[in-house]
């Protein structure tokens, strides 16, 4: 069936990726990152970044408001838990659907403009969503206290099947509880599906048209393409990815707050994508993992840990070094993030994937001396 076809190269990449994701609890252990809460975030934010990359990386539209869809996904999922059932599948389904509709409306308006105007429009819509979620939409979002499960939730489907238990329930899949490691594996499987779908988009004629729009939108029009619905489709797809990620956040922790829609969250996914490599398949995943890892590790550092870490520094300097370093960790993690942002854009606009490619090219050149004239020929893919 055409739906499940991948080129041999893509199939191999998917297989390796699946292996990497499934064995995550093993290879994250040496880094001290093998606890479910963090690994769930790895999977969830990878989905967010993969989806964002379909818009920014393939189509060339820089959205500065994608966190709005993440928030919508979370709210929808929590409402699905509250009203219907704690089962994760309906929650994901509704979240993808609603965030898709939301993206359709915002994208329809925002895509009337391009360049920086598009960025500002998406930013404005996200800011409006955020402000409204905090103020007049409180009946839906529960404002500052965040939307949470309560003991009085109707949960129509669940309670029709079984009596209400004591305490707050957790999300489940066909009755299996999705907490801890099982929660991670659920997110991992969703990530693999999301990755597979992105591979299909990248390899498809549709993906090639999106690249054409990024490269030269005017040429696309004069070539007979109606570019706006293409860009809108990309926008909606990436909005659905964000909604899916938001729903998974709610699955692992049934709570949704407006701060998920804040500009910092929108900026973070931009950073993940460019750090890993804009327009590449794997790049955004690597970017998401690195940022979530460092966020987790750095923000948990304190002066005590730093003091031990810098033990090798001679005594007179020791305290100064620790004092300076402490500004970059813990509460100061954002500072490191900002610096990283600047450094990547300045020195490695192609992200880590670009760095890998450069290093690879270096080795290849060393292996066999370049032939005259071969310099200008670059591989197709």
């Amino acid at each position, binding site marked *: 069936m055409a739906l499940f076809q991948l080129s041999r190269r893509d199939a191999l990449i998917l297989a390796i990726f699946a292996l990497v994701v499934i064995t995550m609890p093993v290879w994250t252990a040496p880094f001290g990152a093998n606890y479910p809460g963090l690994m769930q975030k790895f999977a969830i934010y990878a989905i967010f970044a993969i989806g964002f990359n379909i818009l920014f990386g393939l189509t060339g539209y820089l959205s500065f408001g994608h966190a709005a869809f993440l928030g919508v996904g979370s709210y929808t999922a929590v409402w699905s838990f509250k009203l219907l059932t704690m089962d994760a599948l309906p929650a994901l389904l509704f979240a993808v659907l609603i965030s898709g509709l939301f993206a359709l409306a915002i994208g329809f308006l925002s895509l009337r403009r391009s360049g920086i105007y598009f960025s500002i429009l998406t930013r404005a819509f996200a800011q409006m969503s955020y402000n409204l979620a905090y103020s007049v939409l409180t009946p839906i979002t529960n404002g500052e206290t965040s939307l949470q499960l309560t003991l009085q939730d109707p949960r129509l489907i669940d309670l029709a099947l079984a009596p209400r238990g004591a305490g707050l329930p957790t999300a489940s899949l066909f009755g299996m509880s999705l907490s801890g490691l099982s929660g991670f594996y659920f997110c991992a499987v969703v990530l693999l599906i999301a990755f597979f779908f992105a591979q299909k988009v990248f390899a498809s004629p549709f993906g090639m048209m999106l*690249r054409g729009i990024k490269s*030269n939108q005017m040429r696309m*029009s004069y070539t007979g393409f109606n570019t706006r619905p293409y860009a809108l489709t990309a926008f909606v797809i990436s909005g659905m990815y964000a909604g899916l990620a938001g729903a998974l956040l709610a699955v692992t922790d049934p709570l949704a707050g407006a701060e998920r829609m804040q500009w910092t969250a929108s900026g973070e996914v931009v950073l993940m994508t460019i750090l890993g490599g804009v327009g590449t398949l794997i790049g955004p995943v690597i970017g998401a993992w690195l940022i979530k890892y460092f966020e987790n590790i750095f923000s948990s550092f304190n002066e005590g840990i730093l003091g031990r870490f810098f033990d090798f520094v001679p005594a007179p300097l020791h305290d100064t070094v620790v004092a300076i370093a402490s500004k970059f960790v813990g509460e100061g993690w954002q500072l490191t993030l900002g610096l990283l942002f600047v450094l990547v854009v300045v020195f490695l606009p192609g992200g880590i994937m670009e760095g890998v490619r450069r290093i690879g090219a270096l080795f290849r050149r060393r292996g066999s001396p370049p032939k005259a004239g071969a310099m200008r020929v670059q591989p197709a893919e």
Partner: protein
Amino acid sequence: MTTSERNVVLHVDDVSKNFGGLHALSDIDLEVEEGQTHAIIGPNGAGKSTLLNVIIGRLAPSSGAVVFDGQVLTGRKPHQINQLGVARVFQTPEIFPELTVLQNVMVPAFAKRDGAFRVNILRNVAGEAALRDEAEAIIEDVGLSDRRLSHAGSLSRGDKRRMELAMCLIQHPRLLLLDEPTAGMSRHDTNTTIDLLKKIKARGMTKVIIEHDMHVVFSLADKISVLSGGRIIAEGLPDDVRGNIKVQEAYLGGAHRLEATH
């Protein structure tokens, strides 16, 4: 479908275009017959590119209309005009620099096959063997086979133009608009391009061509319209136009000489 016996495909009907107070085009009437190569010549600033932009829908005329094959083009969007069978080569190549030559030529093929918008996610580009073969054949025709996997942005200007021509040809347009297709090319490349355009002519494709190089014009054109000051001052077969006094004057005024460029 037009039913006149001369079989006019493109009809520019009394088109004027003003920019503020400037009359870029005044009362232009132009009829292009099926299968013919119609050259528009004239000194710089005569309004040639404006006319082409009006035909392709990039500029809206101040008055008048453009009719292609019985369909009014005026007011349509660029992609709609292309879907009716009109393709264009630009004065400065408009290509996809980040894509390979092969991909550049395949993209227009999809527009021809799948229409203006189709979300085709199920298939892989690599699985589109028929389109790929067709693209490779046309790349061969324009002489870029050895560069087909290069990034288009790395091509020389002349190669970019030939690739852009290939991008138009793969759509088998019924009308091809060429805006100075040999500008900036070496003599050798110019001759190759002339041969190529002659080959297309043999296939019966209608062409409107704007060109400075009289060598190119007289090698290809079936009919020539001379534009000066936004008006058509002469029109006819190449030999008639060559001897026309008014044309000589227009060119002398524009510091061009037919003899010199011939």
